[in-house]
């Protein structure tokens, strides 16, 4: 049966607007799929994704895990004889996908253009300043020695007020993220129908696919295979690890300060504090490496950055700089530490909120696809081993044979029947 085609012109224009303006130049030579270090014989990319996008087949692309398997080493862009820049196109498609899974959509828009920057930081700063004003019932007195809070309800910005901002925010972000991931999972599964018998239990899912995928991500195995340069690989790994460290210490501090009464600031010799500061330094160093790398890559024409790419990198850098800056200024007992602290919280707020809306969302969706890829590869292998895959294919070809029979007459009909019989025999064997 032919595929009924009604290209989604909006989607094509969207990809072009999101940095994939070279999309249409592809003439399907497949050089990209050949040079890509991550593309496999079984699931080659990005050639097919290029034409699906050209033809505005948005639904087909959504079901395709390949766009997230790309780590954008840009070898394809370097070797493309037509200047179609598949690396940039896939990045643009990923940006479009993030929008697809994001709700409400206007938040996605805020994260994807310069105008949104003012709105987002305006929002973050006004929420934080409002909290400070409420907590202090007016403009606070700037204490010396500098400290940002003392106790749950006291200080410049008491802990409870920070929680009051960030806990609901975390809840909202988690909700949107889970919604996005489940939407994605559903779409991915539409691409290849897995028979009931081959579906894993939740336990198997976690132990066989999710944990190995996370291990792989921590080690950056795929990223390394991607053949990117040292700066990008190291930078990205540092940033990831820094986030993990900071996630852990934030939770320790949350429990320690909010429930156990160990009020901040904690002394510098505290192991948690040491760990946290290490995380901050790694975060700054990693993000600087990534920024430098991207600058160099863009200068040499290997990549073409979209706004969203730069936004995320600088946001991460500023999260680190303002965090560490606030701490140092506080230790130096300079009152400028207070606005620095507000700036830090605003950056964290914007970063947090951006998890499902900004390029940060690749954390969610690439991870999901890497789990899915392990899962589906395994299922296919199992089905292959038991002959189920062949059976499924045979069913398809039998249908085709039947169709052929209808058309053909006389001898050819007999032949087709024989062929079907043979196939059945093979199946039994």
């Amino acid at each position, binding site marked *: *049966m032919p595929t009924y085609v009604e290209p989604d012109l909006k989607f094509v224009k969207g990809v072009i607007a999101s940095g994939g303006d070279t999309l249409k*130049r592809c003439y399907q030579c497949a050089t990209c799929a050949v040079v890509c270090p991550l593309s496999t014989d079984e699931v080659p990319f990005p050639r097919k994704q290029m*034409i699906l996008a050209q033809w505005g087949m948005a639904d087909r692309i959504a079901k395709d895990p390949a766009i997230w398997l790309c780590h954008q080493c840009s070898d394809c862009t370097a070797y493309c004889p037509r200047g179609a820049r598949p690396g940039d196109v896939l990045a643009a498609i990923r940006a479009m996908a993030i929008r697809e899974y994001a709700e409400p959509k206007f938040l996605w828009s805020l994260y994807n253009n310069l105008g949104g920057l003012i709105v987002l930081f305006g929002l973050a700063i006004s929420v934080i300043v409002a909290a400070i004003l409420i907590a202090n019932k007016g403009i606070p007195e700037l204490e010396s020695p500098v400290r940002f809070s003392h106790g749950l309800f006291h200080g410049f910005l008491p802990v409870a007020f920070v929680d009051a901002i960030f806990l609901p925010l975390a809840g909202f972000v988690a909700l949107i993220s889970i919604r996005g991931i489940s939407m994605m999972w559903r779409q991915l599964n539409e691409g290849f129908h897995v028979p009931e018998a081959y579906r894993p239990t939740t336990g198997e899912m976690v132990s066989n696919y999710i944990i190995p995928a996370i291990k792989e991500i921590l080690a950056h195995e795929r990223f390394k295979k991607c053949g990117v340069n040292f700066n990008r690989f190291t930078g990205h790994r540092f940033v990831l690890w820094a986030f993990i460290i900071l996630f852990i210490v934030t939770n320790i501090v949350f429990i320690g300060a909010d429930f156990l009464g160990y009020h901040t600031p904690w002394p510098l010799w505290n192991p948690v504090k040491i760990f946290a500061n290490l995380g901050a330094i790694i975060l700054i160093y990693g993000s600087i490496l990534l920024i430098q790398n991207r600058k160099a890559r863009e200068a040499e024409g290997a990549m073409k950055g979209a706004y969203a790419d730069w936004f995320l990198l600088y946001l991460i850098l500023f999260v680190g700089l303002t965090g560490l800056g606030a701490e140092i200024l506080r230790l130096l007992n300079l009152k400028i530490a207070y606005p620095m602290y507000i700036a830090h919280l605003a950056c964290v707020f914007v970063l947090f909120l951006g998890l499902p809306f900004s390029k940060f969302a690749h954390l969610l969706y690439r991870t999901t696809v890497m789990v899915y890829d392990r899962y589906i590869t395994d299922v296919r292998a199992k089905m292959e081993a038991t002959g189920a895959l062949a059976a499924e294919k045979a069913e398809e070809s039998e249908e085709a044979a039947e169709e052929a029979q209808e058309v053909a007459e006389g001898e050819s009909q007999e032949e087709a029947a024989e062929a079907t019989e043979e196939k059945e025999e093979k199946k039994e064997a």
Partner: protein
Amino acid sequence: MEKIGVFICTSCNIGDRLEIADLEAAANEQGCAHCASMPFLCGKEGVEAIKNAIKENELDSVVICACSGRVNYDVFDFGNIPVERVNLREGVVWSRWPKVEEGQEVPEDESQIEVAEGVSFKDELMALAKDYVRMGVVKMQKYAPPEPYKPEEEMSWKVLVMGGGVTGLTAALEVAKAGYEAVIIEKENELGGFVAKMKKQLEVGHPYRNLQEPITKKLIEEVQANDKIQVITGATVEKIAGAPGFFDVTYKQGGSEETIRIGTIVVATGWKPYDASKLEEPYGYGKYPDVVTNIQFEEMLAKGELKRPSDGSPVKSVAFIQCAGQRDPDHLPYCSGVCCLASLKQAKLLREADDEAKAYIFYKDMRTMGIYENFYQALQDDPGVFLTKAEFKSISQGDDGKLVVEVTQTLLGEDLAVPVDLVVLATGMVPTTADDPVVPLEYRQGPGFPELELFYGYADSNYICFPYETRRTGIYTAGCVHQPMTTAQAMEDAAGAALKAIQCLKAIEAGHAVHPRTWDYAYPEFNFKRCTQCKRCTEECPFGALDDDPKGTPMPNPTRCRRCGTCFGACPERVIGFKDYNIDMVSSMIKACEMPEPDYGLFRVVAFICENDAWPALDMAAYHRNSFPLSIRFIPVRCLGAVNVAWVRDAMSGGWDGVIMLGCKYGENYQCHFVKGSELANRRMENVAETLQQLALESERVVLHTVAIDEYDKVPQLLQEFQETLEGIGESPFKGW
């Protein structure tokens, strides 16, 4: 010629391998007036010495025995003194080598190598070289200086341009720019042709990415403002009589006929669209009103009415089906070359009219000639243009009235069904010459250009060497009647044809051949007293140069002639000849060679070689130091069509053991400078067989092979095989008679 000077070069191994004194003796024996030898004949001192010798001895011609005549022709140029070149280097010392068994060393002294009883390799090598020297001297003895053809009548310098489209307009302008007069005859009432009816056309210059207003507007203005160009519209050419420089062209305008004198003609009559009514199956043309041709869509775009013919609703999506009825043995077997660009252009115009419109282009191969790849790339960037390689499968109508085009073998790896408002078939070009002579020539061989089947009806020519030449001298084609092409290409083509037309006029004025022997002042002369009116020459002339008088005697038209010599090759009575090249000359050369006594044990073979293909191939083989049999004496001829059977008879009855003819490839991708030469020679092999039968000789003794210019590596093998054939048959019984 009477006082012939022979100059033998001793460099380039000639002096090492040959006995120069013996060669000088042979030249003197043959009757030269002066003979000298020296090293580096092509050097300053050598050339100076020849010049001095000419002066001192009052020589009227020279024979240079050195390298091949294909090299150093500019060095050995002595003005009015005719020069014959004897090819001792490529023909002897660089291409004849003793046979060496594997592992054995070649003996230093070639006179120690025995090739037959009592005959050394050196003896045979010298015999060959001496034969060449003798042939050179004899050829010069039989040479008469040619005189230019100067008709009494005044020639016309006007160029007739048939057709007033882009090509015709450009051709006329180019003629005028070069300072000559042009006459345009256009059958329609308006100039401009097809392009003038377009909304927009592809830009005809860099960067080849955009569209522009039709160029015809500007061209028409220029033509109308140019007083060297006469425009006759609404007129058709009824009759063309005469010959280049002296054409009488009769045209009909309204009801009246008029005749004008014309020098040369540029045919720019263009093309017409393929009859789409033949495309009902499978393309649905005629069955669905919303299936239109690219011509019809062009008209819709020009009018600005993008409405479906069926119900007048707006066209929001169009499927372009490329190669509809093209590259298809049932319709047009060729590619029209412009339809991919036309569809891309139409897609662009559609998209410019409506940003939400979608254009699908299903192509077999996207062919955007030349730098128009840029235009293709520009269109690829349009989000609303969807391109894929595909094979058309079917067309049907959906319930909503839309047409559904099904295609297979797409780049998406699956069959597609695309619902669209309009289907545009990219139908192809048919040249005006396909079913009409276009040039109503009053020639003995009939009107029109002969044998256009080779080019699917296009008035094309030998594309390898001569893009503008037709098989009718003085008549040049350009634009889409010549080959399918874009406007930009047609303009370039028009300029080329216009300059060729002028070049032809200059050649007629000077009295030499137009092409390809542009320097050649000689022309065929007829001894009508002995003519038997057999008409072979008038029929075989590839260029229709010869008409008949009422009695059937050939009437030459020297300005139509290209000096190939096919006529003299054809003439059984040997009544045709050039001053500088004739039957007696070559027969005498054959006879000048020394024929050994019977039972000599070695052979003598004469080879007639085409000077355009076989000769360069042989020279190249010599540069690779390949070896030819010692028995073969090569005689270059201007065309294998100019080989008269009399020469074969002379050779065979004179004791030669075999004759080999090496001509160029003929047939579909022929390479003959004179179109038919080697093909005719091949046909005349029947007469050769008859001659051999009369002499009671084996038919294998005379063979013809075709050799392309690049087949130098195959020639030695070919010659060796012929030598072995002769060894199988044995010596000619005519030796010693």
